[in-house]
């Protein structure tokens, strides 16, 4: 049901690189799990609202007060690479392949 091409497409969306073994296994396992999940397709859910927050709450507001954030140097201390007070990342121009376009991405809501 989930073929090799679909596995590779989804892996690209999820920024995962799978080995040949993993692609085959993932195809089988996702098909098995989705096969089970598809049973919810049998239910009549006409007019049933989707759950948003599982416990009914009305709007709750907090006081709009300014509080200190974590100091920059503390936050940067956890980063693999930093420069000039910011997170340092490799250049996207150094990527080998053209990347996934937004239209391949998750559906806007």
């Amino acid at each position, binding site marked *: 049901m989930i073929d090799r091409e679909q596995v590779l497409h989804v892996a690209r969306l999820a920024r*995962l*690189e799978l080995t040949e073994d993993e692609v085959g296994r993932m195809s089988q396992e996702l098909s*098995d799990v989705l096969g089970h999940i598809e*049973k919810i397709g049998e239910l009549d859910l006409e007019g*049933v609202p989707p759950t948003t927050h599982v*416990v009914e709450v009305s709007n709750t507001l907090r006081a709009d007060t300014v509080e200190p954030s974590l100091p920059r140097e503390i936050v940067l201390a956890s980063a693999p690479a930093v420069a000039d007070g910011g997170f340092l990342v490799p250049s996207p121009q150094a990527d080998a392949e053209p990347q996934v376009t937004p239209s391949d991405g998750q*559906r806007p809501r």
Partner: protein
Amino acid sequence: MTAARNTSSDVTLLTAAGAVEAIGRGELSAAELFAAYRAAAADDALNAYLWVAEDAPAPGEGAALAGVPLAVKDLFCTEGVPSQAGSKILEGYRPPYTATVVAKLAAAGAPLLGKTNQDEFAMGSSNENSAFGPVLNPWDRTRVPGGSSGGSAAAVAAGSAPWALGTDTGGSIRQPAALCGIVGLKPTYGTVSRYGMIAFASSLDQAGPLTRDVTDAALLLAQMVGQDARDSTSIGFPGEISLPCSESLAGIRLGVPEELSGGGGVGIEPGVLDAFNVTLRLAESLGATVETCHLPHAPHALSAYYVLAPAEASSNLARYDGVRYGQRVEDGGLVGMYTKTRSQGFGREVKRRIMLGTYSLSSGYYDAYYGRAQRVRTKIADDFRAAFDAFDFVVTPTSPSVAFELGAKTADPLSMYFNDYCTVPMSLAGIPAISIPNGLSEGLPTGFQLCGPAFSENRVLEAAFALEQAIGFDASGGRA
């Protein structure tokens, strides 16, 4: 381990509430208690701990929890202490802040004893998905402790922690509690702050206690609940959590859902069902009425859950990209770095769930999967509301099986997922549910699950306490 082997085991035999009392009477000092548990945790042979504290601050004057130390699941951020969520991608990560619930408990006099092993990002039912190796069940070391809070459950059962903090997304507190012969409580969604809990599925994740008895669960939960400005989904608890004392179930109506007790759907082991039925008879002898009830959509809960939880996980775990924290694997460019980092940092089950979630949220599939699952979730919550019109509590076996052997289910994700069959419906409904030890099957613990409407924690604890007294479970097998 026999009582004689560990010379400091006398104080570790006390329940947490017992230790609080002993400290209050001046028979025991918090420092002495911490030292005993620190030694037991450092000596842990179950791989339950990933990190153990060197020392603990003295409890504040009159602190409710008197310095009784707390084992904390790895995924709770603790400032300056490794918090890795059982994942290689966060190996060595020491967060710059502490989770609200851990800070609240420390302030109440329960200092950090150690960080406990877990399934990676809380995804698992056996603790075999930890990047730091599996945890062994203290009742039988060839078996799993359950998961994902397996380290917390094993530590409490083995006596290397007086109590522990876990998280429950689809059963991750209740199922390991059942498999290790201890008490585990998942509170109403939103009663405990999730701030600083490394997220798995945000609409389901909830922190809760793993303890030796129901009284300890109430004692710990009382200090955990509360609205938190840093968790916009937190609600807090109306009123206070009180310590249970009821020994009667007079007038209590227990509903046994046919769909979750072997009547339909998944198979429940005969020994587990026998133990469950023995407790139902005990409940009747305490004055409860026991009748069959129906949760017609419960057989679909697992399907809905395995859409919703992976979908939320795929979004939550997008943050592990090698930029702000955690591991990074360079690959020339930016997206190459993201991809290499994630591919080498995540384990097999986490990748599987990210793939599943990404698939079900991807263009063209959203309505068929995520949208539908959110509607099933509404129906499941409605089923419980209807049941609670006629019954005070709904009761089920916690786990369909006793602890299984290491490796028994790792090759088949679907059979592993079925461990959550009886616990997932309550998670989807956001309601409180407790698992208490329920006698043995094949020499291994079974769990009895009791759940009530949202915010009924006090009533749930009272009923669980009454049952606990009647069951009289012998937990010593976990220390053997």
